[in-house]
């Protein structure tokens, strides 16, 4: 067995005009223009980050997603964030539990989230490790697709000024560390 390094000092890189920051923390407590919620097609908030959204944000977000009703795989939609520190939540629907074409769907989901941010002129957006953890997308794949999408958006010239990747623990931080460091 090997000891896992636990150093999770935030890393920041500038890609064109966009600052990309990797940090360990509480995604739903960040003061950003929006954070991304990895959503189901029916937009049900559920547990996990959904628990935090309902607890910290109050009932407003639930009402908004119920009104929207649902989105298709790879799409994203934006709501307010109720009483949370963030101003908005981008609900982005990505692949779950080994479903086919995980990589392609995850890429669509990332691009949709970034497009929503761009269209709404958001300056700072925070992402979790998309699909990793509960939904079983391998961390390495999640990191690769996310970094590719962020790099492409930065090159296109109109991404948010700050993009944060916010991990829950040292384990997922390490999975992103090299990729962000190499930007």
């Amino acid at each position, binding site marked *: 067995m090997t000891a896992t390094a636990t150093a999770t000092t935030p890393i920041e890189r500038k890609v064109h005009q966009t600052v990309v920051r990797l940090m360990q923390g*509480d995604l739903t407590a960040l003061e950003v223009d929006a954070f991304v919620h990895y959503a189901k097609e029916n937009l049900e908030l*559920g547990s996990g980050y959904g628990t935090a959204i309902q607890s910290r944000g109050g009932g407003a977000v639930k009402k908004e997603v119920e009104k929207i009703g649902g989105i298709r795989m790879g799409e994203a939609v934006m709501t307010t964030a109720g009483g949370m520190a963030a101003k908005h939540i981008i609900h982005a629907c990505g692949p779950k*539990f*080994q479903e*086919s074409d995980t990589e392609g769907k995850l890429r669509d989901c990332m691009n949709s989230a970034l497009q929503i941010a761009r269209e709404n002129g958001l300056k700072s957006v925070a992402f979790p490790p998309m699909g990793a953890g509960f939904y*079983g997308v391998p961390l390495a794949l999640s990191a690769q697709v996310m970094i590719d999408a962020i790099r492409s958006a930065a090159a296109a010239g109109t991404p948010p000024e700050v993009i944060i990747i916010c991990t829950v*623990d040292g*384990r997922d931080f390490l999975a992103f560390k090299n990729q962000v460091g190499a930007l």
Partner: protein
Amino acid sequence: MSETRSYKAQKLVERLQVKVNRQIMLSLEACVHCGLCTDQCHYVLSNPGDVTYAPAYKADRIRKLFKAHIDWTGKTLPWWVGAKSVYTDQELEDLKDTVFGKCTNCRRCSLNCPMGVDMAVFNRMARGLLVHVGVMPEGVAVVAKDQWEIGNQMGVLKEDYLETLTWMEEELQSEYNDHSIRIPIDKMDADVVYSINPREAKYDPRTIAEAAAIFHFAGENWTMPSQGWDMTNFGLFNGDDELGGAVGGRLYDAVERLRGKKLVISECGHGFRSTRCEAPNWGKRDVAFPMESAVITMLGYIKQGRIQVDKSKNSEPVTYHDSCNNARSCGMTEEPRELLNLVCSDFREMHPNRAENFCCTGGGGAMSMTEYAPRRLKSARIKADQLKATGAKIVVTSCHNCVDGLFDLIKHYKLDMQVKLLVNLVASALVVPERPSRKMRPLEGYKILVIDDEPDIRVYLGKIFKDQGCLVTEAPDANQGMRAIKADRPDLVTLDLILPYMTGEKLYWELRKDQKTADLPVVIVSGYAAVDSPRIDFFGFLAEKRLPQPNGFLEKPVDPEKLIETVRAVLLEKA
């Protein structure tokens, strides 16, 4: 004949090839269908005649898969050895019903198998295969997602956890009329880092207070982490090794971050087993510090004379329920009994007991699977009969999961019993010393936050305060200082004025503006008047912003006696 396999079934079969290890293979190969396991299972005993509950039958649902895809006999003579794969999503649902709904992974059948077949090890693997393709009871999904994303399996947010600890600390101080009783959070270099079950923070916070009282009267140097505090691990229940490794890793990270010397795990069977025995393997992680159940810790305090107890304070008849994970999987059977006999005057053994005890029926994550509740409660008849036969008024256990399982069945079978944890009984038997066990120092127990960008100054001031018995935390800049104040409000802050990112005067302004911190005592400790910092005019700033004077103002270099005198005056005046 070829059958088309559904996408999920195909993915499950592929995963099977990865997850079968030597231990699982031996258990799948060794069964001779002797039937000795049958009468060991509480499901069977409460459902006589229903073969689908028999451990060997349940095991064969998984064994058929193994034969079909891995074992050579199944590949060569499938009809002979009963090999059968899965093809449809409905078959996955049927498998789910067996491995989640008809077994709590209690391992009573494993213990009594003459061939050494460990049913729980491959039942857990089968759960993991289903979870991998998204087939699981809704409650299992809810809990697992909370633990993945919030960091604990009940979705307790950080602010709620910290507020609960503060509330319990205040309750304790009021109950014992003793301001020095603390629940220290994120204290560095403590001898004990104490981790809990989120059920305690959410539903049963008195157990935290009781443990805190025991630590206090034992004179323990202890702390609780502000993050990575959940010692439960749903990875054990849903078969997800990745979750198991991640959750264990967060706890180990917390101990390492705080440079704790020992991790003490609150009373929880699966939490103890996962944290101490399984998670290092799941997470491929070396753990350098010792890990201990709170049962052992409390017993040690009594035997070493660090706390005094009076068993006559617990005079009602009690019996003891062994948690499956503590007793069968970790061998912890005698210590809880030794402890009970020290804190109770009428302990009655239930039968069978120790490693042969029956499951509370809420194990293996069963309490989260509401769809199986009627089945669970029916199977609890065997446990109810066991409890009733003791004539005890209190059933004690050392597992929060068992508390819920037992509470449910006691209500269902209308037994006249209460459920308690060992910590409840030890706390109620405590003999509080009339005079403190050690000489109290004037500032004993006060929490001081030192905000200063110079490491030497932080160490220097911290040493002075620690010598007075204070609990000291440090922050190198104003931003981190503000976060520390919000996370765990100190009793007093010493604040340098020249700080990176945000000046000390700006932080002071922020504190005084906020209703929550407007009355937080602040003593300025700064070299601002030195000739190299002519730009800072703190008192001019106060006048301009119409801010109140700080509670104290000391220029560097600081005289230790003057510092203590100032801080003591502020704190005692406030008290």
